[in-house]
C-alpha cells in the first residue's frame, strides 16, 4: 500500500489509457484487468452531444485512493491506477481508466470491477449530459 503501488489522477486533459497500463506493469504480475469508460452517444435513446464532469477535487482524489488501497489489500494487487477526467468531453472520449495488476487473473477482474462499481457510488464527481434541448445532472433525481 505504498505510494509507488498506487497512481491516482484527476485530469483536465484527455486520459492516456496506456499510461495506466504502463504504471501497473510488473514482473510479478501475471494478469492486468483494465476498465475504460467512454462517453456514449446516447442515454435511454436520447442523443448526447457532449458532457461535463465536475469534481470536488481533493475529496475525489482521496476517495479514489481509498478504493485503490482496498484493492491492494483485499485482492493482493501489486499495482493500481485510477485516472478520471474532469471538464468537457465529446462522444467517445475517455471519462475513466482503471488498471489493476495481480498475480492471477481472476483477482484482477474482480478488483477492477469493484473499483469502477465503487467509484460510481462514492467518488464526488458529477456528470452533466448535454442534449439538443437542454442538460441534466445525471442521477440527481429519483
Amino acid at each position, binding site marked *: 500500500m505504498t505510494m509507488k503501488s498506487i497512481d491516482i489522477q484527476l485530469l483536465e486533459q484527455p486520459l492516456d489509457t496506456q499510461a495506466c497500463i504502463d504504471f501497473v506493469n510488473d514482473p510479478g504480475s501475471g494478469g492486468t484487468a483494465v476498465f475504460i*469508460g467512454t462517453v456514449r452517444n446516447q442515454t435511454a435513446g436520447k442523443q448526447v452531444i457532449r458532457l461535463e*464532469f*465536475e*469534481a*470536488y477535487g*481533493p*475529496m*475525489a482524489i*482521496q476517495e479514489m485512493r481509498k478504493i485503490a488501497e482496498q484493492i491492494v489489500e483485499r485482492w493482493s494487487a501489486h499495482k493500481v491506477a485510477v485516472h*478520471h477526467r474532469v471538464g468537457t468531453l465529446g462522444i467517445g472520449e475517455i*471519462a*475513466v481508466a482503471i488498471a489493476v495488476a495481480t498475480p492471477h487473473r481472476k483477482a484482477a477482474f474482480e478488483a477492477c470491477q469493484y473499483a*469502477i462499481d465503487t*467509484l*460510481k*457510488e*462514492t*467518488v*464526488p*464527481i*458529477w*456528470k*452533466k449530459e448535454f442534449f439538443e434541448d437542454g442538460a441534466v*445532472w*445525471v*442521477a*440527481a*433525481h*429519483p
Partner: protein
Amino acid sequence: MEINILAFGIAKDILGSNQLQLQLPEAATVAQLKQLLLEKYPAFEDLRALAIAVNSAYADDQLPLQQQDEVALIPPVSGG
C-alpha cells in the same frame, strides 16, 4: 458560528452559487445543517440523496461541526 459550505453539481444550481455561508449554533451537527438547508432551499427535497462532507470525508448526521471545517454538499455522484 458561521460555516462555509461548498456546493457541487445540482447543489450548485439549487443554491445559485458554488459557496454559501450559514449561521449555525455552536457545535451544531450535520443533521442540523441539513435541516436548515432544507428549510431555506426546499428543492433539496427532490434529490435522490444529499450527503455532507466535512474536511473532504463523508460525515455522519451526528458529527458536530466546527467553524473552521470545510463543509461540502454532495448530491448523488455520477462519475465514471
